[in-house]
């Protein structure tokens, strides 16, 4: 692999890893805050136990989310210095604002929350976890403002062929942000909901602490229902925007080689990307036009026409991203999402009809369904980032021109290996701890001491 491919692989791995932990942070912070608020308002001890139980799992996950995030802040400069130089006037600001308004908030108040049970009033302590939830949500906003600029550059003017910020409000209120932000945050909320629901289902099956886990299940279900429905609706809006703003991404996601009006939706397409021929192409006529434009007519451009258009606009080159990755990421993301929506209604059934009396071992599938949001989150990001290729900033800068020219491939190979191994190990430890403490159920404190710890 050359330096570019190594740098891209590293960015992909570190970002996908980071985004394993972030959605759970987003969702579980909110859910824990709801539980503590119920404790403060209702005064029942079980809500405090719920807060402490889910909070403990939250913290294990939060720690890894924070440390994997450090790498992100540094990686732009380290591996993508040409990119940083090119967009720095615009891209750096939301990152700095993210640090100032979001990271400080969540980092400070998480300390107050973990250590302040006996020092803060009940209300103030509950407020702390709300501040953590707010901080992580605001963090998502600013990073998505930055990311949205990459997909749909706005609020800038070109000075000596370099974009310079000309309108901060346009940057923030980028149409892309308006769908990307709620979609991403809601996906985090869905992740939290499934995490809580799945683990609660496990304990309900085992008849452990039924009061704590049925109440947790209820919170997760209400939260999750709103979140999954919202997430799908905003996702749909985002897809409609994608047809307008990044038509090649949609064409690839649909494996639509030739422009169609009305445009058909793919059920199953298997294409040879070299030749542009599809060996299998089962499609629903008109459905893609309907999804794109809310009516059964309207042209959706195909890959071949778009390639020609982009070449005439931007010069010679390959403007077609990986069809395979885009097509299957899109499908897996959407498939997982609809399955999740269905399961949330199943959860409602468990609550209202079965009243949490679970007998069949099939219900462990609810626990297994914790994997679904992770699949959707990851494929969603693969789609949106890899579908933008060959651009790193759409229409302005190609990924191939963005890497640090002075960093040897050997260095990148080193960092790629180091991060892959370190993150892998952290993942193992993280999952091990999460499973252990999830299975243990609620345990009273304090943490006991170890005898004979050897000096450093």
């Amino acid at each position, binding site marked *: 692999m050359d330096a570019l491919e190594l740098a891209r692989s590293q960015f992909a791995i570190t970002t996908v890893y980071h985004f394993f932990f972030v959605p759970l942070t987003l969702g579980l912070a909110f859910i824990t805050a709801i539980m503590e608020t119920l404790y403060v308002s209702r005064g029942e001890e079980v809500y405090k136990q719920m807060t402490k139980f889910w909070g403990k799992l939250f*913290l*294990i996950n939060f*720690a*890894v989310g924070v*440390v*994997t995030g*450090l*790498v992100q802040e*540094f990686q*732009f*400069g*380290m591996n993508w210095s*040409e990119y*940083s*130089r090119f*967009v720095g*006037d615009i891209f*750096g*600001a939301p*990152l*700095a*604002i*993210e*640090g*100032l308004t979001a*990271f*400080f*908030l969540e*980092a*400070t108040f998480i*300390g107050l929350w*973990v*250590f*302040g049970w006996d*020092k803060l009033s009940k209300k103030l302590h509950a407020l702390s976890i709300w501040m953590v939830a707010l901080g992580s949500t605001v963090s998502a906003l600013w990073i998505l403002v930055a990311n949205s600029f990459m997909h749909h550059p706005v609020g800038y003017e070109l000075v000596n062929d370099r974009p*310079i*910020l*000309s309108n901060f409000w346009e940057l923030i209120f980028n149409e892309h942000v308006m769908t990307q932000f709620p979609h991403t945050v809601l996906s985090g909320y869905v992740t939290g909901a499934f995490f809580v629901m799945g683990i609660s289902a496990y304990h309900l099956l085992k008849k452990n602490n039924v009061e704590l886990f049925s109440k947790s299940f209820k919170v997760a279900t209400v939260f999750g229902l709103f979140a999954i429905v919202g997430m799908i609706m905003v996702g749909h809006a985002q897809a409609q925007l994608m047809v307008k703003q990044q038509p090649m991404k949609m064409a690839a996601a649909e494996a639509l080689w030739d422009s169609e009006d009305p445009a058909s939706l793919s059920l199953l397409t298997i294409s040879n990307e070299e030749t542009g021929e599809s060996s299998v192409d089962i499609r629903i006529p008109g459905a893609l036009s309907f999804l794109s434009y809310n009516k059964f007519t309207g042209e959706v451009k195909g890959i071949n026409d778009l390639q020609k258009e982009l070449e005439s606009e931007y010069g010679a080159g390959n403007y077609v991203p990986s069809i395979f990755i885009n097509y299957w990421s899109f499908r897996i993301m959407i498939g997982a999402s609809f399955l999740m929506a269905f399961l949330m209604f199943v959860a409602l059934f468990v609550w209202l009809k079965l009243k949490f009396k679970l007998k069949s071992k099939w219900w462990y599938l609810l626990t297994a369904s914790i994997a679904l949001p992770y699949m959707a989150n990851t494929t969603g990001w693969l789609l949106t980032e890899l579908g933008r290729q060959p651009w790193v900033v759409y229409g302005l800068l190609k990924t191939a021109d963005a890497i*640090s*020219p*002075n*960093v040897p491939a050997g*260095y990148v190979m*080193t960092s790629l290996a*180091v991060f892959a191994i*370190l993150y892998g190990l*952290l993942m193992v*430890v993280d999952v091990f*701890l999460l499973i252990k403490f999830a299975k243990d159920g609620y345990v009273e404190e*304090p*943490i*006991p*001491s*170890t*005898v*004979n*710890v*050897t*000096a*450093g």
Partner: protein
Amino acid sequence: MDLNVLWFILVAVLYAGFFVLEGFDFGVGILLPFIGKKDEEKRAAINTIGPVWDANEVWLVLAAGATFAAFPQWYATLFSGFYLPLLFILVALILRGVSFEFRSKLLSAKWRGLWDATAFIGSLFPPLLLGVAFANMLKGVPIDANMDYTGGFFNLFSLYALLGGLTFLGLSALLGALFLNLKTAGSVQENAEAIAARLWIPVFVVLVVFVAWTLVTTRDVLAFLAIVFGVISLTCIVAGYLAARAKRDGWAFGLLVAAIATNVATIFASLFPNVMVSSTDPAYSLTIINASSSAYTLTVMSIVAAIFLPIVLAYQAWNYWVFRKRISAKVEDLHY
């Protein structure tokens, strides 16, 4: 005031804030093997920084982010140029971050010993390597006409740079000891006091040599200011030592904080108006002008900073106030 100058100062303040606040976090981690043999003693030490270390680390994230926003060329040259050292720093910070959270989760002595070791390493290398980085920024490294670093790995470890690293390492260790002396009770506090007593003189010696060498490397523009900061830094550490001898522990801590902050100020005053010095050709150096963002961006950032920085400082200060009590090595009181 000129926006470019303002943001140079702000970036310097952010790095100074980071070296102070994370200084004692790193120090506590570095002292972990020496602060006590018992599990609850080590836990007490970690619990002193437990509520604050994460927010302290954000100062580094913000310093990097502010550098990116205000001086994108500086960010690009510095971070791509010092690639491998930054990689080590990141690995260290990652290990440290999870160590505090994971350490007491299991009862096993081997498990806790492992995370104590990673906390130690994760606290030792960042101040060392960041000190090296700052020394190099000032001293000058090979940078070409495209603002790209063209040196290798080993020329980042000159004697001056290593001295810079050792200075920040020593200051962190000492500050950590003073912090523990203020924040703990019982055996931990006694150990911290004893360690601090032994660290003052070696750290002072290293600092004197580093400050002197730094001032010799100073450019002309702010030479006087750099000298003033340097002298204040040395005066503060001497005064801090005397305060410690007189058992005025709060003063000792505060004076060392001032010594660290003014040491950072010395470096930045010596650097001004450059942000990265090219040893290849002074014309290739990055300055507060050629490395900066547009006036519009700097203005937007200034407004956001003016609104939020005071708010952040307020709730961070409140955080310290909430946890002002001393921590003893009693298991019931330890959350980490």
